[in-house]
Each structure stands twice: as structure tokens, then as C-alpha cells.
């Protein structure tokens, strides 16, 4: 009969209306600024740059390869490559970004920069309270604001960060072993041969090799 | 002279002139509504409460909406293109209007109107109207009912869409070209009207 469905629906909403006063557990919303839900594991918002160690500028993983800049669909990443080099986590001298800006007013959170980064240097952040009163300058994040320590990344994505860290540690060990072997081989060769034969430059990597003074 | 009457009359006449002379048809309709509302106010001022409200209900509520619907349903380019030039028919029209107005005004001017004997405004209650409609005026009421029914059915039948619009002869008068009955032009006319 006409109207039975209406009455059923009205009864349901009446139940909700009364029930929401009786049992607060029915309420689905959270009183946001006071209480917050923990962000989900795979939540993402805007990219940030990971650095190792204590010094944000020294430990930056980014080598300014500019792949992310090229891949970025809305073209919101701006990188200037440095003229000089500095050692990376292994100790290999690498270029570093003289400037690294992301315009998060343009960024569409697609995560493509993260996908393409061969150095695991750029990762997605979960912060979302980014509103400012300035549309232009405040939403253009610079390298200093973008750089965040590895510990922060470990907090955000524990599994991924752990995996990356172990890989890096292995690579570092390998590189150290190789460097040691190289050094030994070199020493041996120097000892054996009177005329030492130079190794090719990029492979050569003794641990502290300050090539040039850093200007940041 | 009664000030309220003058205000109402001037507004009504002005909006009537606007309704008859404006270019935009919707503006005409809106001015017409104002005229009807002014006439309803005149009725109210003449102590004909029921009639005034009926006027408001029928004209503002129904006729105006009908006219607005008709205007929007028959929107065509030549509504805007209506050029105004002085043709013989315009002159004759104005002549007729002037003649009617002058003769009526002259007749009114020369009429001796007796002063009303009862100064008290006649109060006509809705109940009284209803009783009279059911006694003295019952035949007119029934005739009106029949008329309205007939008008309603007639309006529906006239305005009902024909089963197949392609069957009706569409006349392409937009260009002022006369109707050609060869099948090709008919086809194009139908297509153009879609």
C-alpha cells in the first residue's frame, strides 16, 4: 500500500534522531581540532625531501637529477642543479640541488615524483593543515622547508623506511668493502709497481673527500 | 480628489502603457501583472473585497503565469526584430484609439451624475455572495462552470502536441518565403525547426 515505505523510512530516521542523543557511539563524526583520527598508513598529501643524519643540507638524498621535475604532470617542481658536488651517503660525490622548490598550490598529490625517484629522496607527506594567508609565497615550499629527517619518514611509513634503510646500509657496507678492497689493491699496486696506475675518477671514493666548499 | 486613488491610477496606467509598448515580451508581461494588481487595488478601494482578491488570484496567479509560459514557449527571433515604422495601419490604429478615447471621455464629461444617496460604503460579505450565487445567480454559475470545463478541454485539445510532428505542414515563414510543397523543402523546414 502507498505510504508503508514512507512510514518505515520515517521510523528509521526517528530512531537515528533519538538514538544519537541516547548513545554517543552512533555519532560518526569526530570533533576535529580537539580530537583527530590517526592518518591512514597510505595517506598522502604533498612531497617532502628526506635527509639522513643531523644536517638537513649535508644529508639530503637528492642528487638533483631532475627526473621528478620532468615527470611532474602539473610542473610544480623547480630544481636548480649545483655547480659543485658533495658526497652522498656512500661518500660518492654527487650533485645536489642548489634550490628545490615545490609549489603546493599547484601540486596535485599524484605521487609520480615519488615513483620515479631512483634515490628514494622524495616521499609523500601526511600533513594537511597547510592553510596560509598568502596564496603565493607561503605555498611555494623551499628546500629548507621541504627537507625532513629520515626519522620522520620512518615514523610515517615504517615498513618502507626500514626496507630502504637496510638497502642503503647494505650498499654502504658494500661500498666500504669495495673501497677498502680498492685501497688495499691500490696500496698493493703501489707497493708492487714503481709507477702507480691511476684509477678512473668516479669510482675512486675515499670516505672524506671534500671536493669544494659548500655554499648553501 | 483622493490621493490613494490617484497614485494607484497613475501607476496602473503607466504600467499599462509600458505593458503595451515595451520591446521585451517578458517585461511586457511583468508590467501587465502590475496593471492587474493595480486594478485589483482599485476594486479593494471600491469596497469590492471579494472581487479584488479574486482578480489578484485569477490574473496574477493564473493568467500572468499562463502568458509567461506562452511567451517562453513561443520564443522566436522576430519578437526582437519587431521593427516600428509608421505604416498606414499604425496611423489608422491610433486614429481609432483616439476616436474611441475622445468620444468616451466626451460622453463622460457631458453626463450628469447624480450624487450617491447612500454615502455609507456597501458591505458585501463573502457569505452573501455565496448565497446569491446559489440562489439568484445559480444558472449563470452553472453556465460558467460548463464554459470553464469546455474551455479547459478545448485548450488541452488545441495545444496538445500532434502525434507525429512530421505529418503537420510546417511553414517556414522565418525568411518570409512562401510555402513550397515539394518534399525537399518540407524536410529541411522540419529539420530547421527541431
Amino acid at each position, binding site marked *: *500500500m*502507498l*505510504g508503508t515505505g*514512507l512510514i518505515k*523510512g*520515517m521510523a*528509521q*530516521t*526517528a530512531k*537515528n*534522531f533519538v*538514538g*544519537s*542523543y541516547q548513545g554517543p557511539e*552512533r*555519532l*560518526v*563524526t569526530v*570533533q576535529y581540532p580537539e580530537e583527530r583520527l590517526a592518518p591512514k598508513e597510505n595517506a598522502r598529501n604533498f612531497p617532502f625531501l628526506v635527509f639522513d643524519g643531523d644536517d638537513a643540507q649535508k644529508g639530503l638524498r637528492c642528487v638533483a637529477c631532475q627526473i621528478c621535475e620532468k615527470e611532474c604532470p602539473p610542473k610544480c617542481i623547480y630544481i636548480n642543479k649545483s655547480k659543485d658536488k658533495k658526497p652522498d651517503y656512500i661518500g660518492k660525490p654527487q650533485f645536489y640541488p642548489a634550490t628545490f622548490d615545490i609549489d603546493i598550490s599547484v601540486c596535485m598529490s599524484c605521487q609520480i615524483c615519488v615513483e620515479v625517484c631512483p634515490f628514494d629522496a622524495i616521499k609523500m607527506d601526511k600533513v594537511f593543515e597547510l592553510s596560509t594567508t598568502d596564496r603565493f609565497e607561503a605555498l611555494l615550499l623551499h628546500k629548507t622547508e621541504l627537507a625532513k629527517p629520515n626519522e620522520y619518514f620512518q615514523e610515517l611509513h615504517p615498513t618502507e623506511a626500514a626496507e630502504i634503510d637496510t638497502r642503503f646500509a647494505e650498499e654502504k657496507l658494500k661500498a666500504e668493502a669495495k673501497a677498502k678492497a680498492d685501497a688495499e689493491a691500490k696500496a698493493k699496486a703501489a707497493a708492487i709497481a714503481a709507477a702507480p696506475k691511476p684509477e678512473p675518477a668516479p669510482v675512486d671514493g675515499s670516505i672524506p673527500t671534500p671536493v669544494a666548499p659548500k655554499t648553501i | 480628489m483622493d490621493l490613494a486613488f490617484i497614485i494607484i491610477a497613475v501607476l496602473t496606467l503607466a504600467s499599462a502603457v509600458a505593458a503595451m509598448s515595451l520591446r521585451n515580451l*517578458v*517585461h511586457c508581461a*511583468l508590467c501587465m*501583472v502590475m496593471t492587474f494588481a493595480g486594478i485589483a487595488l482599485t476594486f479593494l478601494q471600491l469596497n469590492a*473585497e*471579494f472581487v479584488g*482578491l*479574486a482578480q*489578484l*488570484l485569477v490574473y*496574477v*496567479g*493564473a493568467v*500572468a*503565469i499562463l502568458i*509567461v*509560459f506562452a511567451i*517562453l514557449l513561443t520564443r522566436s527571433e522576430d519578437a526582437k526584430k519587431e521593427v516600428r515604422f509608421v505604416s498606414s495601419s499604425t496611423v489608422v490604429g491610433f486614429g481609432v484609439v483616439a476616436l474611441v478615447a475622445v468620444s468616451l471621455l466626451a460622453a463622460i464629461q457631458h453626463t450628469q451624475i447624480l450624487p450617491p444617496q447612500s454615502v455609507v460604503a456597501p458591505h458585501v*460579505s*463573502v*457569505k452573501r455572495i455565496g448565497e446569491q450565487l446559489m440562489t439568484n445567480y445559480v444558472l449563470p454559475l452553472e453556465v460558467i462552470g460548463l464554459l470553464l470545463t469546455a474551455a479547459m478541454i478545448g485548450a488541452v485539445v488545441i495545444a496538445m502536441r500532434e502525434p507525429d510532428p512530421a505529418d503537420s505542414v510546417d511553414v517556414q515563414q522565418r525568411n518570409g518565403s512562401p510555402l513550397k510543397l515539394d518534399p525537399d523543402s518540407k524536410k529541411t523546414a522540419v529539420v530547421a525547426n527541431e
Partner: protein
Amino acid sequence: MTGQLDQLFVSLKQWLVSFLPQAAQPMAGILLSISAIIGAFATMFAITTIMERKILGRIQNRLGPNRVGPFGLLQPAADGIKMLTKEDIVPFAADKLVHFLAPVVLIIPVALALAMIPYGRNMTAVDLDAGILFFFAVGSATELSVFMAGWSSQNKYSLVGAMRAIAQMISYEMPLVLSTVSVLMMAGTLSLPLIVQAQSGYIYEILPRWNVFTPWGLAGFVLFMIAATAESNRAPFDLPEAESEIIAGYLTEYSGFKYALFFMAEYWGLFAVSGLAVTLFLGGWNAPFPFLQWVPSWAWFFAKLGTIIFGFIWVRGTLPRLRLDQLMNFAWKFLLPMSLINIVVTAMWHFSRVFQFVGAREMRWVLCALVLAIPYFFLGRALGEGRPAKRNYKFAE
């Protein structure tokens, strides 16, 4: 004491007016009543907006607005300030004058309609002999304002919304008026205070003699409320201003103060039509039981008005929007026949009053209810015809 409280506003007005010279008193009295009505309903508009959001929130298991002030009670003030300080944008292509006039044309008839309603004993601002006719006469002007708003915006969504609104309002005005006819037949008057008076008194000294407690009154009340929901463009009949389909229809191009005016006029229209429902069917300012007569009459009126508005909000929180063809079918194939049948039933009720044998009262009640229930059943079934059969989902549920 109760009498004084009951006539509080009437005596207050008389006291205030008595300071003025004799000649200015009637005018001042009218102005005072009108400003009181406008003030009261502006306040009520503010309260209703916040209550509506709160109740809708609770219906959807949310809290509703609770940020501005204690329990969010200052939300209407915040909304008002926001509306008034916003930029008033008029589209470039719009017909400026008509665009400006539309909200004004809407609010004037609504305010006039509010002046008709008897809010309490001796509390009718304008007591017209043909009060209800006046109500519908000025109410018909709202359609025009909706058209003006939609047409002058020069926006297709606005025009579509306006045309939908007019078609809907015309279709539902008929059941709205016809469902009041039964009340007018029984009361024998078009004057609203007299209709309220006709519903005073108690059957067996305890049951109220309201129209809603008769078969024709109940049917008329339901029909009236459905038609009133459609007339005031509220859910589930909110197609003309469907936000999700035609971006609020004729309101699309309105902003700032004009939008606020439209919004307020819509709520005032809701109050007016609810007040009319209270007057016609729920006994106006009469108390439901004789032992509750010490409560002032205006308190009863506003309590009933609040109940009806709560019902509107409840319906809005429950029912989804109708489709346009469903809307028209419902008006012409269900509401209109039902309201015509209701008039016949009222006549039956009226003429069966002469029977005085034992149980005649109960018998005519049952008979009239039956005459209404049978067509209701069949018309309702006819309305459901052509509807697709209930689908059985393989994986859902």
C-alpha cells in the same frame, strides 16, 4: 492572571498606542502589529535555520553545527553577518531591474500572508472577511517572483529551475486550495479567526473538536501538508532548487543580501503555510484539552507551529527527491482526485449530522473513513504501476 497572560500582547499594544493622538491610533496599531510579526518571524527564521541543521545532523547521526557560541546557538548570527557582508554579485547579462525586484516581490506577499493568521485570541493583525482567499491570492504572487528570479539571471540552470518551480507550484496549488475547501464548508466562513472559533469546544468535555480528528480533516490535513511541502519547495519536492542537479535553480545567480532575502522569504512562506495548516486543521490557538486552557493561546499556536516545522524537517531528513514525472503524476493522479473525494466526504459528514440514533457518530466516522480509504488504496496502487519490479541482487546484502 491567565487571562492577562493570554492577552499580554494585545494589552501591550493597546497601552503603547494609547500614547498617540486619537487619529493616529488605528494606523499605529497596524504598524505595531506588523513590526511585531516581522520581528517575531525574523527571530523564528534564525531559530529554525539552526534547529533544522541540528535536527538534520542528528537524523544523520551527526552533531550538527556546534562551534559558534554555546552548542552552536550563535550560528544564525554568524550566517547572517556572512550573508550581509558578502559581495552582491549581479551577472553581467542579467536583467538588472528584474533581478533586483525578484526577492522584493517574493517577500512582500509572504509578509502579507503572515499578517492574516490568527496567532492567539484577539491576535490577528488583519482580520479580513475573506482571509483565506487573500492568503491564496497573495501566495500566487510568489510564483511570479520565482519566474522573475530565474528569467532575469540569464542562466540556463536558473531558467530551468524557475520553469520547474512554476510548473510544480501551479500543479500543487490545486490540491492545496481544494483541501482547504472541506474546512471552509464545515466552518461556513472564509475568515480565519472564525474558522479557529469553529474548532473550539470539546467533544465529551475532553476530546478537542479540531478538524484533524475527523476523517475528512485528517485526509485534508495530509493532503494540505503534502501540497504545502511542494509549494514551499522543500524536500522531497525541492526539484526547483535541487543543488545536485541544477545548482540551486533560480537561486544560482543570487548572492549576498538578495540571497539572504530569498532564503528568509522561503522560510517565511513555510511559516505562513504551516500557520495556515495549524489554523485550518489543528484548531489554531485552542488548547488540546480543557484542563490545559490556562496556557496562553499564542503559546499553543506557536507550539503547534513548531511541531509542524519539526515534521517538515523530519521529512526533509528522510525522503529522497522525486523525479519530475513522479512529481507531476503524484499531483494530478493522486492528490487532485483525493482532494475532490475529500470534498464529497465532507459533504457526507455534513449531511449525516442529522442522524441522532445511538452510535450514529461512530458509524459516520467509520463510513467516511472507509470512503476515503478505498480510493486511497486504489489510487496508491495505480500510482505504483509501471514501476520496475523489486530487484534481487546476487551479491549485495
